[in-house]
């Protein structure tokens, strides 16, 4: 089957199509698979705002830095967040200047730290999309159960549909979306139906292995070819090519937990602006666990020529940015897309020879 799909994608000679993935793991998986080198140039794959670290605004990083320098406080966070620039510094740089920052793998490690060091105020930098947010609800459960008073979270949590809506509304030249596999495990594939209907645009939920990518991209291109026919038959343009782990309804238990702790609110996406209802914030009854996450809207570029925003919107490729691979590289990222291994510029930098 896969060989047939590969042959089809290689020989595709229909209308040029642009597929956008909105998941950092897809960005990395597509680069690692080398799939762009074996499909028709008429099928263009672009990376959208799928890396939660990349889209966190500088104001959020500045607040983490502010807390890291506070007497008696320690920031804990995941690896990638260490390197994202605030308005002036990164957490990594602040660590070198006496800021207290600890990298952890699981938020649950912070529970152990907070219990071991009751005199230290711990703040967990909680960044993520629908995939990661359930983990933070487990953390909050533990904080409440253990009656910990020295552990809070500083959130930059975001949801996919509002930003996809924003991209389509803004006239981004995208023909279809490679819908995020991990996010969809939580949200379910039905999550995309309203957007597919509103913009008559196909969504294909896709896995991450090279063969799963081939199957998903093939399925999406076929949907595009038969789009009018499918719409005339009243079909919804959402297909699940990752049925081994994604269901139509998703993980309802996890979704209920998310809604229990968090409520929607406006959120700034780095370089893109404020998108209504695209963020999630702790509900007022849980305010005691929030280290001040609302209103961190400041969004400054460290280099005015940085065009991460247009890269994230699929308007230009990384190579069209004047800084790319010149002053901007993974060792000295000028914009957020170059920071994370899930950022589109980072992956394009590694594969810049292709």
């Amino acid at each position, binding site marked *: 089957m*896969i060989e047939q799909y*590969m042959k089809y994608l290689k020989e595709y000679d229909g209308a040029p199509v642009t597929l956008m993935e909105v998941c*950092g*793991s897809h960005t*990395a998986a597509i*680069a*690692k*698979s*080398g*799939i*762009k*080198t*074996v499909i028709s140039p008429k099928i263009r794959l672009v990376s959208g705002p799928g890396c*939660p*670290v990349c889209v966190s605004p500088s104001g959020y990083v500045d607040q983490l830095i502010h807390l890291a320098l506070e007497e008696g406080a320690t920031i804990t966070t*995941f*690896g*990638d*967040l*260490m*390197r994202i620039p605030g308005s002036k510094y990164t957490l990594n740089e602040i660590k070198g200047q006496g800021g207290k920052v600890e*990298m*952890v*793998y*699981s938020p649950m*490690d912070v529970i152990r730290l907070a219990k071991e060091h009751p005199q230290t105020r711990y703040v967990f930098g909680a*960044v*993520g*999309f629908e*995939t*990661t947010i359930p983990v933070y609800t487990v953390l909050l459960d533990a904080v409440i159960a253990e009656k910990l008073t020295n552990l809070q979270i500083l959130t930059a949590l975001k949801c996919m549909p509002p930003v996809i809506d924003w991209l389509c509304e803004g006239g981004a030249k995208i023909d279809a979306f490679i819908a995020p596999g*991990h996010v969809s495990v939580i949200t379910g594939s039905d999550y995309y139906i309203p957007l597919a209907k509103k913009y008559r645009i196909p969504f294909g939920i896709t896995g991450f292995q*090279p*063969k799963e990518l*081939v199957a998903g991209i093939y399925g999406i291109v076929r949907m595009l070819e038969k789009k009018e026919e499918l719409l005339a038959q009243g079909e919804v343009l959402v297909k699940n090519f990752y049925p081994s782990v994604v269901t139509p309804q998703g993980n309802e238990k996890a979704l209920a937990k998310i809604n229990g702790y968090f409520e929607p609110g406006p959120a700034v996406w780095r370089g893109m602006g404020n998108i209504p209802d695209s963020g999630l914030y702790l509900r007022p009854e849980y305010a005691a666990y929030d280290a001040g996450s609302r209103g961190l809207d400041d969004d400054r570029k460290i280099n005015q020529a940085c065009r991460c925003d247009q890269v994230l919107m699929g308007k230009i490729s990384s190579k069209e940015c004047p800084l790319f691979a010149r002053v901007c*590289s*993974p*060792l000295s990222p000028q914009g957020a897309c170059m920071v*994370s*291994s*899930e950022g589109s510029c*980072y992956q394009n*930098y*590694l*594969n*810049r*020879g*292709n």
Partner: protein
Amino acid sequence: MIVTMAHGSGGAATSELIRDIFARSFDNDVLNEMEDSAVVPGSGRIAVTTDSFVVTPIEYPGGDIGRLCVCGTVNDLLMRGAVPKYLTCGFILQEGADTEVLKRIVESMAATAREAGVKVVAGDTKVIEGNGGMLINTAGVGFVPEGIEVSAKSLKPGDVLILSGDLGDHHAAILGSRLSISNDIVSDNAPLTEMVGNLQADKVNVHTMRDVTRGGLATVLKELAASSGVVIALEEDKIPVKQSVKDFCGLLGLDPLYMGNEGKMIAAVPRAEAEKALSAIRRAAYGEKAVVIGEVYDPASAPAGKAGDLLLTTPIGGIRQLDVLQGEGLPRIC
């Protein structure tokens, strides 16, 4: 007992530490002289190297800083075709270090030195302020037999590249232990003495050897491609990685091609000698999974790429151009 600043004073406490821990474990004729410097026999072409070890945690699944510091230095000597003979070690202990732990580390170091066929002939201990950590510097001396010419610049078009075993074990073991991720991955830290010895005994014409340490396979091979002005082409399907390490990498968003190893090497040999080299490596300790993973091309006749390129054919036939490691290889967020 807990190490204090007194253990670095050069006085009674230092002597006690040397006598009870270092001299007891390393015990050999040269060291036992206890002079200001070691005088050792040997002549010819001498290989010299040094390396510092700062790994955290100092004891990890499958090894410890003691085993690591011997393997790292011995393997660096071996990669030039030298026969390792002597090691020196400098211990920098932070006050608060536990002498029981130190004993275990030194004993592990001594056992690994015996395995690798080297003597620890000189040493030094200092104590600094801190919280119980331990850093080690080792230097190594070896002798290069007549007729052996192995260098990073000797890669030739037509060579095949042999990898001596699975990638990523050491990196995953350290990171797993640092991040408290339970798994059954153990470090591959090992001296490659027997492997290189077999290649020399079988008179395999080895052009280049490199141990695949920090930066991983991709970084090492990209540097080799650049220093020899050739194109290196690898096949991803042929590169051995344990399923547990693949899963670990998947979880953290790491790439086994960029993960460090401490008991793996790459050998470049002419195609006609590939079978001979494979058999020499496979019958040595730590080499049973050796496999050919790629080839070296003249840029003019390579199927793709230009001088200095490292290309990887993916399982779906895509081509990835690999660069050296960028940044520090942090785990990603989701």
